[in-house]
Structure formats: C-alpha cells, structure tokens
C-alpha cells in the first residue's frame, strides 16, 4: 500500500465511520409510529406561545395550551358551544340579571397544593381591572364579588348582560391562586388536569397529568406540544410518525392524501374564524354602500372556497358561525350575480374601478386574494395586491392606521359580530347609529330578546355589506386513526386535551 493510498483509505474510513454512526443511530431508534401506544401523545401546532402569561399577552397561542388544561374557569363551553359547569357545579341568576350565585366544587386544589375557594373567585375576577393588560373590557361590568362561604361566591354586575357569562368561559373567567401568580410568564398554576413540566422555546412544551386533579383523571398522562413554523415540516413529522396529531392544519391541498391513508383520520371541525373581506367604510369607493354590495354580487364565494381552500370550510352569509345561538342562514342575501354587480357599480358612478387590496402574508390570505382579484376583474374592478407582512405590517398599516381600501383577514375571535361592526373607530369603520341601541337592549334583555336583537344586527350588517365574510374557516385535524376523543370543534381558543385516549 503506497502512502497516499493509505491516507486516502484512512480518510475514507473516517467518512465511513460517520455514515455508520448515522445508520446505527437510525437502526436503534425506537419506531416512532410503533403500534403499542403508551399514555402519551405528541401534537403538532403552529404559533408558539411567547410566554405563559395570558393576562398580559394577547393572541390565541397561550390559551390554546393553558385554558381547560392548566387553568380552569367556573364555566366552560362544550364541543357544541353550550355552557357547562366546571369549577362551579351550579349557579343561579337574580331576576334583574345582575347577581350570579355560584356554588363551587369541593375538594379542588391548585397545582401548588392550595385549596380552591370562593376567595380565589373574588381574587381572580377583581384583579382583571387592575392587573390585566388585555381583555379588561370583558370584565368591565363587574361591580364586585362577595365571598358568601368557601364554596359560594356571589358575583355582582353593574348592569345585566347576556354576554358576560359566555365571556366567563374564556380567558377572563380563569381561576388563579393568590400565591400562584408570582411568575405567570413561566410558571402557570391552575386547577386543571395538567401542569407544564417543560418548555423549550422554538421546539416544544410538555404537559403532565396531575395526580391530585379533582375531576376525572385524563387517560393521556403526558402530552408533548411541538411547534412548527413551516406547514410542510409539520406534515412531514406526521407522516414520519413523529407527531400523532396536527391541530388546525393549514395545508388543505394535502388532505386528500391524508384521507387516503388508513392509518390517519381527518376531522373537519368548526371554528369561530371567518375569512373576512374587509372594506374600509370610511374611504372611497367603499364609503358607498352600492360599491360594497356590488363586490358581494361580484364574488362567487363557493368558488373562492373551492379554489383557495380546496372546498374545506362552510359558507356563511354574515359574521356569525352556525354554532352561535343567533345564527341565521343569510347565504342567499347576495347570490353570485356579476351583471347586478356591474349595474350597481354603474349606478355608483365608479366603472373601471381601481383599488388596492392589502393582503397579509398568510397562506389563506394569499390563496383567497388571487381568486378574488380575478373575479373582480370580470366586473371591471382592477384590484392591485399589496402584500403586508403579517402580523407586524398588517396590524400597523391596516388595523391600527386604517390605511387601506380592501383587505382580507381570518377573524378568529369568538362572537366578534359586535366588535367588528358596532364600533365606528374599528378598522372597518362601519358607522351605523341604528345598531348600538339594538345591541344595548339585547344585552340587557332576556335570552330570547338577546338572540333576536343579535339576529337583527347580523342581518343589518350583512345587508349593508359592512364587510364581506367569504367563508367560515375549517379547523382541520389530522391524527393517528387510533387516537380518540379529539376535540375537533374550535369553540374557544383552547385545545382541550383531557378527552384524548388511545383506542
């Protein structure tokens, strides 16, 4: 062997060794999609929480993990959107609708060992006005909380409200312990079935079931939530068996492929997210109701849903999802009718209309915008797309400065009809003095009156095309076929884990 050959052979051997290490590592790897499932689940998500403090940090990422899993409220919404007792086993409302008497569950403890009592109800609700940085408006009606006994709390509102108890099923209704709020950003302490055991930013959050949970113990004791910035990376992980479930999957074109796979199940759940074609009611040409109505006639919403989101989703005619109590089918208010659209545009004197279309950099938005632009072109409207980085630029330009004509956004907030249209200073700029009194009367009235009033508001805003909901966004869940008890309907921001179990 010549010296050179020897050197080369040595180098090759090193290279081979590297390759070998890789292979052995692979061979000894326990098969991630092994058949014997233990009591653990790995879930793939997008949008990682930046911290755990949902009292000061906005967005749905934190409540998705913590609500109903780590923290619990007095009441909670079930998968059909109905209010159910949680930490309160029952409640009564006074005749004037301002006083709520809650009877609390006994034997409930926080993860730090402290007992849950009426004092915690008082503490949690009353500190919202002083210590929370967000969502304070939802508890603005709160006058005070009386501790009647350790298991009885009386909540007094300054005026009756139909929405308040529903809001109590959201983040503002979550219960905290006075000694457990020292480090909300990192150490959440609640009464829920799980606690956070590990958080590696940019990678995963681990939850473990509490042994001293007051309610029924969850079947899954260990949950890993893995965060993916890239939708392809997340579907790869699912196909490789590295995750058991993808929640709110955002690549609809891949669904047929998953549906064809016997080892996977695809669930199309409902959500509160409307894909909203927002129009700035305060600037031309959308300050003219005829132009907005023309846009509604010009767009074939079913075709948009089919082309942009592979037909997944639900048609809606107003800013109200079918799971809301005041839903009414308004789909036929503005059927696809390009000729009518052109007539209305002519009537408004804006033929050959040119507009700018601000599109946030989100998959759904880019997909929707292309179809919208081509359909608008057919009625003589030239829409030029301006791409806005989301969230930073879109929030600043469109949402805060109202510097736009038309945009499209997924409005994820639950029951956001009023937030969107009953506020002239909102970025939509819909100013209709007619609806505020209807809203006030509805909120203070009986439940039937409330439902009727809200239906009226929905119909008025839909007729005026204050903005145009294109379709209801689906909550698509793709999971291992053996995983049961998946809460597929995104009725709140929360991803409820306690029902999960392996078949």
């Amino acid at each position, binding site marked *: 062997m010549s010296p050179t050959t020897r050197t080369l052979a040595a180098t090759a051997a090193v290279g081979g060794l590297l390759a070998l290490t890789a292979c052995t590592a692979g061979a000894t790897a326990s098969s991630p999609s092994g058949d014997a499932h233990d009591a653990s689940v790995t879930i793939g998500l997008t949008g990682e929480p930046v911290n755990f403090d949902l009292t000061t940090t906005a967005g749905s990422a934190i409540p998705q993990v913590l609500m109903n899993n780590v923290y619990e409220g007095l009441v909670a919404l079930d998968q059909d959107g109905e209010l159910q007792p949680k930490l309160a086993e029952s409640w009564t409302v006074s005749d004037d609708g301002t006083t709520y008497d809650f009877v609390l569950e006994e034997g409930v403890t926080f993860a730090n060992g402290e007992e849950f009592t009426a004092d915690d109800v008082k503490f949690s609700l009353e500190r919202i006005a002083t210590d929370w940085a967000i969502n304070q408006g939802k508890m603005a009606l709160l006058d005070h909380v009386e501790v009647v006994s350790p298991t009885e709390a009386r909540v007094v509102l300054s005026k009756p409200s139909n929405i308040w108890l529903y809001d109590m099923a959201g983040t503002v209704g979550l219960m905290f312990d006075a000694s457990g709020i020292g480090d909300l950003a990192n150490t959440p302490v609640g009464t829920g079935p799980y606690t956070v055991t590990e958080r590696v930013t*940019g990678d995963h959050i681990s939850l473990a079931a509490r042994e001293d949970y007051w309610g029924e113990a969850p079947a899954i004791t260990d949950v890993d939530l893995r965060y993916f910035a890239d939708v392809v990376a997340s579907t790869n992980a699912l196909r490789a068996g590295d995750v058991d479930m993808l929640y709110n999957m955002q690549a609809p074109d891949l669904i047929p492929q998953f549906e064809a796979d016997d080892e996977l199940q695809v669930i199309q759940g409902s959500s509160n997210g409307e894909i909203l074609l927002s129009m700035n009611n305060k600037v031309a040409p959308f300050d003219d109701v005829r132009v907005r109505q023309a846009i509604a006639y010009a767009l074939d919403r079913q075709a948009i849903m089919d082309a942009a989101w592979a037909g997944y989703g639900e048609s809606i005619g107003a800013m109200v999802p079918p799971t809301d109590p005041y839903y009414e089918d308004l789909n036929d208010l503005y059927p696809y009718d390009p000729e009518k659209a052109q007539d209305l545009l002519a009537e408004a004197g804006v033929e050959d209309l040119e507009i700018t279309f601000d599109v946030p950099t989100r998959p759904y938005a880019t997909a929707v915008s292309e179809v919208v632009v081509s359909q608008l072109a057919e009625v003589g409207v030239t829409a030029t797309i301006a791409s806005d980085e989301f969230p930073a*630029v879109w929030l*600043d330009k469109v949402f805060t400065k109202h510097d736009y004509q038309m945009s499209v956004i997924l409005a994820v907030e639950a029951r956001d009809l009023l937030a969107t249209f009953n506020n002239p200073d909102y970025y939509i700029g819909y100013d209709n003095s007619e609806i505020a009194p209807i809203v006030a009367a509805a909120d203070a009235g009986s439940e039937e009156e409330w439902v009727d009033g809200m239906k009226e508001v929905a119909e008025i805003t839909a007729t005026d095309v204050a903005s145009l909901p294109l379709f209801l966004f689906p909550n698509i869940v793709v999971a291992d076929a053996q995983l049961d008890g998946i809460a597929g309907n995104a009725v709140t921001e929360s991803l409820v884990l306690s029902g999960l179990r392996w078949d």
Partner: protein
Amino acid sequence: MAVRLLKLLGSFVATVLVSTVVVFLLLRVLPGDPATVALGIEATPEQLAAWREQHGMNTPLVVQYLEWLGGLLRGDFGVSYVTGQNISPVITDRLQVTLILVGLAMVLAIAVAVPLGTIAAIRHQRPSGAVISAVSQFGVAVPSFLVGMLLIVFFAIELDWLPSGGWVPPSEPGEFLQHVTLPVIALGTVQASILTRYVRSAVLEIQREDFLRTARSKGLTANLALVRHGLRNAGIPVLTVVGLQMAGLLVGAVVVERVFTIPGLGSYLVDSVGNRDLLAVQAVVVVLVVAIVLINFLVDLAFTLLDPRLRRAA
C-alpha cells in the same frame, strides 16, 4: 507579526461597530409597530403608549443606541420586547445549537471534500475523477433546504429510520445523533460539493509547480510528493474557502433549522423579525457578524502560520 495582528484586531472592532449602527437603524425604519404585535388587536391606544414608554421607545434614537451598545459591551443583550425575558441566555442556548450544526456540517464537508477533491485531481484524466467532478458540480447547484426535504421524505417518512425534525441536546448522545444526522448532511453536502471543487483545482495547480517536480526528481513517487509537499501548499486557497463557507453555513443554517424545526439561532432570528422583537434581532445579527468577522480573522491568522512569507512580510 504584532503589527499585523493589531491591524487585524482594529478592523475587527471597526466592522462590528459599524454593523451595530447599521442593524440598529435598519430595524428602526422597518415598517410595523412592535407594540401592536406584542399587545394584539384588542389593545387600547393608552395601553400601546404605556407599552412604548415602558420599553424605552420614546427616548431619542441616539440614547437608545448608546444604551444598547453599553449593554453589549457588558455582554447584556437586553430584555426581549415579546417574552419579557433576558435575551443573553436565549442567545447562548440557540448559538450552541447552531454551532453544533455548523461545526459538524463543516467537519463532514472537509472529511468528504479533501479525499474526493484530491482523487479527482490525481485522476482528472480518468473516468473516476470526472465522475467526482460531475457529481460535485451537481451538488453545488442543489440548495440545502431541498436536500433537507428529500432526506426527510426518504429517511424519515419512507424508511422511518430517523426523526423528521426536532432537537435533542448532546447530553443524550443516542437521541442527539438521530436528530442531528439529517440536518448535518443537508447542510454539509452542498458545502462538501463546493469544497471538493476547490480542493481539486488547488491540487491540480500544485501538481504543476516546480517544487513538486523537484521533489519527484529526488526520488519520491508522484503521490508521496503530493502528500509530503503539495497538500500543505494546496491548503492555503482551500482554507480561504473553508472560512467563507463557515459564514455561508451560518446563514444556510437559518433555512435548514426551519426545515427540521431546530431551535437554533436562525429560527430565533426569523421568529424575532416576525414578532418585531427588535432587541432579539439585533442580538442575533451582532452575534452572526462577530462570528463571521472572527472566522475571517482566524483564517487570516492561519495564513500567517501556514505561509512563512506572510510572517516575514509583517
């Protein structure tokens, strides 16, 4: 030697300083308001104003810059706008991950490129040399994220040998190796291809040098002469490329970390830009600049050691 070192050090400090100014200013003109991103759509104007005040965004830019620079000198990157946590420990964690990736990828690239490039040069007129040459040409053209995705499809999904992504620290060696293998190969192959081509041309050039003919004429075989006298000289141009590649790898890691969902410096940078976490972006960029300048500095230093002429000239 000392003068040369001082000069190198001076340019090192100047480059870093200028880059801090550029980064700081660029981020201030970037559209988008950090306060709205942090507080979300339900925040009131008063809350936004209070947030800006609390995060020192109402003070003059010069003051903000100097305060930040002062922190940098103490090794303090400040507190993140978004998470409210100190940035320095996050940077340390993330940098570690990226350095492991880049380091292993570079080792892999060198381990593949040096023998292959040498063979390709020695046998440049034979088919085997031409094959290496052609394959490396192909490798240069394939972006690392594509290699990454192909590796995932093949090794993670089809064969189910290795995980499709994620990260486990080296303290758990078995798991660590499984998770690190595919990203390192994805990062390393492109660099290996580039490097192979440079090694090949460097060795080819060396073979034509007079001193090699002299070595052979005193009785050494062609290959022995190359190993004893040639490779060291071929090392200088190759070293330059390795230095440049380290910089390229640091940048390439941004993409590969995304594909494999690895919590390194790159994914931190991308997330922070999206969240308008200005201090975090500044921190990452400064770390990257320092790393790249440092690499260049070390390469310069290595030249001086490898090449006696440079030592004398200084």
